[in-house]
């Protein structure tokens, strides 16, 4: 456990009327960050496997993304965000 707290002091702002919706959304986004991290790692692992053979873990850890890699991953992240937030983002269009 780390010493730095994970939650700020005071009551958290609630934006949705029903209790728990904001917290659920927060949890969903944090889960999405985890999924995003796994996807990033898999992408890198594939690149590493292509070039390095069997020493997968060490090679992945030390891999530095190229500018081309960064572009692929950035596009991938934006697609993931749009997918996960699709219903929220679309709300303006359905009123």
């Amino acid at each position, binding site marked *: 456990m*780390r*010493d*730095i*707290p*994970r*939650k*700020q*002091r*005071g009551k*958290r*702002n609630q*934006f*949705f009327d029903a209790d728990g*919706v*904001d917290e659920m*959304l*927060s949890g969903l*986004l*944090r889960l*999405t*960050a*985890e999924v*995003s*991290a796994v996807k*990033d*790692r898999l992408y*890198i692992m594939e690149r590493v496997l292509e070039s390095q053979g069997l020493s997968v873990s060490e090679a*992945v*850890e030390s*891999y*530095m*993304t190229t500018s081309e890699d*960064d572009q692929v*991953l*950035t596009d991938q*992240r*934006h697609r993931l*965000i*749009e997918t996960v*937030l699709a219903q*929220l*983002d679309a*709300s*303006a269009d359905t*009123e």
Partner: protein
Amino acid sequence: MNSSLQHDLALALTQEEKAKRSFVSALRSHVLQNMAVKMRAQYFDVVKPNLEKQQDDPETPARIHKAMRSDKVFKAYSSVRTAAQEMVFDVVSDTVDRHLTSLIDRPSTRAEIGTLTLDSELALPSNVTAIDVHLSPGSYHTEYADNDMTAGAIYDNSIDVFAFGQFGKTLDDIGSTLANYIRLKFPGFSPEAILDCGCTIGHNTLPWAQAFPAAQVTAIDVASPGLRYGHARAESLGIPVHFKQMNAVDMAFEDNSFDVVFSSMFLHELPLKDIHRYLKEAYRVLKPGGLLWQMELPPMSAMPNYENFYMNWDSHYNNEPFYATFRAQDYRQLLVDAGFDAEHYVEATMPRYTFVGEEAFTDAIADGTTFDTLTGRMDPKGTRWYGFGAWKN
């Protein structure tokens, strides 16, 4: 996302930490661009027409806020933005926590060129200690170890994630822009002593030492973790700055000590009574012929109603409770109340120096001050920073 930090205190990131930072930056970018555009359209296309049918009250930022509170697009924007803000601190705190001991014990590899003077007896103001400013757990003052730098390291790493590139490659675009504006706009002005108030980690202080290498640069803040970190950061970059733990509303400097008193994103974090106290102190420590120069959010009087509502979101929901009150002030009158002459007031909006380069920047600042919807906003389309201040007689 590899860390953008280009100094010896940059922390080694695991691939997972890089990936999470990249995700949170992308999420912030999505909220502040894509979702913000949809929220604006929702107001003008749906909410505003409904309001106009129902009542004849004039449109004000407060009225827009009240109406938007019950709008589902505003709720989604605000909920996701809050979650993203919390995630910024959470993801970088994992890294800082893992490296904290080695960061504090890090041997200095360079000769000292600046100084660090702490005051353990200094009473910390409640605007820093009573709330977790910016939703940052522990705020800026909490210490977790002897000689702690945690809050400073969290701040440096968090703005790297938070700004999604909009503060420049070395996170110092605000300081670079405001310092170089003075250098280029007033070529005959050669400050010998420069003071930055509320400096945090000094990221916007260092550009002053670079723009005016002959000047002695001093930076003050109330929070020691940021000062320790800022001092080590400046030393590692080879830029001489003298960091002192001091409250800007009650400075220990003699009268007429500085040619420039600067601050960035500082006033809006202060209660109004402390803004008045700080400005009077700034006037006192400025030499005659010296310049007070603040990078700040643009005043509400200069911006349209919707932009004021949008910009003041932070005051309601990001633990920056004094922000909207500050923006409602007449900035020129604040300086007059502190002792400056109204005719010596200066203000400007300017493009980002480190983004556009010196030639385009020089051309841009030759024009008069212009406000638009990008003034004071972080936006890849072309943020313009705002500065105001006054010359002391």
